């Protein structure tokens, strides 16, 4: 086999300009795919980071039926003290969980004494919430701390209602029995959603929620969980699955467990980025396929008499197939290796240049492209594999040449 490699390698060098051109084309394709993957990966990891670190956490637990009616934020689908005791025991014993936080979600009317508007409220325990969602504070502006009696208002709503930090506002809400209650709160800051200053999501302290909703004891709408390692999502879900074993009166699971992927609409964007990646890989495959096929067909035509000679000497057809397959293989390997090296250099360069971009309200986000070894390997394997596939037909053609005919050609 070594000798087949040696001869194939020399055959590639005999037309070094063409070999270089073909290999460069493959290299270019590989670079294109890998740099795109790294850039898309940077954007994707920023998006996922924003989703998990400032809004959803990695995993959420609710009472059965809460997610289905999440838009109306039902108060009758809250977790009670007994449920929490059961779940908490599982959470504390988990080896994947970094921290978790309790929230009460409800709808209310927000009033500045002149006009009022509806608001979706997330009531949090600031200590555990900021630990579980480390990027949440970054979405609050003019913000010091969310103490009791304070509210963080969505930015555009604050503008529209003309309220600013320190202003007193009223929050009115129905509790689960239908009775109305209201409390005075002081504006602590403004918030924005991931995609900008809009939205209707305000934040208050969990104790204020209990006060306005007249909740006695412990009651929670959702538990937000942060994992030590985001890549352990599936394992953590499996570990937490005994939570689902608890049945309610109708014999179904009493709780529901969701990953951020199930809950966030942004996951479809992530999937779209992955889909585009596949599309670009298909373009790469076409480039490799066509260029290798082209160069191999030319090689066979140029060397017909030589093939006749080695065939006359007694080279078995199988060996002739191998000679041409190895030629295509070497072209693919060369293109993949050089492509990977150039891509690593470009990605390193882009990383060092600290290019900034903006998304929603967040400007000066730094592009941090990272090339995962896995991506490099996948792309390289695809390129080499396709190079082999493209060489099959010319190689078989070469092996089937009639030696008499082949020796007669010029």
């Amino acid at each position: 086999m070594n000798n087949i490699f040696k001869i194939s390698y020399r055959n590639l060098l005999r037309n070094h300009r063409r070999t270089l051109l073909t290999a460069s084309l493959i290299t270019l394709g590989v670079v294109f795919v890998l740099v795109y993957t790294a850039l898309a990966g940077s954007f994707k990891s920023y998006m996922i980071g924003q989703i998990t670190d400032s809004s959803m956490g990695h995993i959420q637990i609710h009472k059965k039926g809460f997610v289905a009616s999440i838009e109306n934020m039902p108060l009758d689908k809250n977790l009670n003290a007994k449920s929490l005791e059961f779940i908490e025991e599982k959470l504390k014993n988990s080896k994947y969980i970094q921290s978790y936080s309790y929230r009460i979600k409800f709808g209310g009317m927000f009033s500045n004494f002149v006009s009022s508007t509806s608001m979706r409220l997330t009531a949090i325990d600031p200590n555990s919430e900021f630990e579980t969602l480390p990027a949440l504070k970054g979405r609050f502006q003019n913000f010091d701390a969310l103490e009791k009696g304070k509210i963080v208002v969505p930015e555009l709503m604050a503008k529209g209602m003309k309220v600013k930090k320190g202003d007193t506002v009223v929050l009115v809400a129905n509790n689960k029995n239908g009775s109305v209650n209201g409390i005075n709160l002081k504006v602590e800051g403004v918030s924005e959603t991931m995609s900008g200053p809009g939205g209707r999501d305000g934040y208050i302290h969990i104790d204020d929620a209990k006060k306005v909703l007249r909740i006695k004891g412990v009651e929670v709408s959702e538990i937000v969980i942060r994992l030590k390692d985001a890549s352990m999502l599936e394992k953590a879900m499996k570990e937490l699955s005994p939570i689902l074993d608890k049945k309610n009166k109708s014999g179904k699971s009493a709780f529901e467990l969701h990953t951020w992927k199930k809950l966030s609409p942004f996951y479809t964007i992530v999937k779209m980025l992955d889909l585009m990646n596949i599309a670009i890989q298909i373009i790469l495959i076409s480039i490799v396929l066509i260029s290798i096929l082209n160069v191999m067909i030319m090689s066979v035509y140029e060397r017909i008499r030589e093939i006749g000679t080695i065939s006359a000497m007694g080279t078995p057809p199988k060996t002739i197939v191998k000679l041409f397959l190895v030629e295509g293989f070497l072209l693919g390997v060369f293109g993949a290796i050089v492509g990977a090296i150039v891509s690593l250099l470009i990605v390193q360069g882009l990383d060092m240049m600290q290019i900034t971009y903006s998304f929603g309200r967040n400007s000066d986000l730094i592009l941090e492209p990272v090339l995962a070894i896995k991506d490099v390997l996948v792309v390289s394997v695809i390129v080499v594999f396709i190079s082999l596939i493209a060489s099959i037909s010319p190689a078989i053609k070469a092996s089937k040449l009639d030696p008499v005919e082949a020796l007669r050609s010029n």
Partner: protein
Amino acid sequence: MIEAKNLKKVYRVGELDLTVIDNFSLEIDEGEFISLIGPSGSGKSTVLNMLGCLDTPTSGALDINGNNITSLNTTQLANFRGEHIGFIFQSFNLIPVLTVYENIEYPLIMIQNLDEDERKERIERLLKEVGMFEQKDKTPDKISGGQMQRVAIARALVTNPKIVFADEPTANLDSKTAHMIIELMKKIQKEHNTTFVFATHDEKIVANVDRLITLEDGKIVEDRKVA
């Protein structure tokens, strides 16, 4: 050694069946130095290709060293050629990307799979025999036509074939070089008892052979021993 009986070769050209060789029978003994002569189109190359197992006859029987050639498939034919037959071509047909040494080494690696020591011993002996030892690291484009044919002879002999077929081996050489090549082949034939079969027009070869077979329209018209 070679026994051909009633060989027939028909080529299909468009709608027509063209019989190039018909009722061709021939016996060749070990160590003979034979020339096939005849005008263009007389079927010399076709006979050479069939006897050399490059082409299969349409009908008839061909036996070489006790092997029934007509029953072999493509791969078996290739293996048979690799084991028993050597070829020398008019245009030398060396592999341009390999050095002189590697060109001779090629059949030993790709076909006979010999170990390195044995290869080296055999190749160096042949290189000295054909007078190309000094040029062994040059590629074919760095040597003359006569030198290329010497290398081709060494390549044809390196597998220790019983028979060597040569199609116009001197046609691309000047007369002095052609003469040296013929002398070389004659010497090798004597030393190794290798059978040589030529298809040629070259008077110099004809003058040196043991047996002369004249072909016309695909038939043997004369088969005589030369003293």
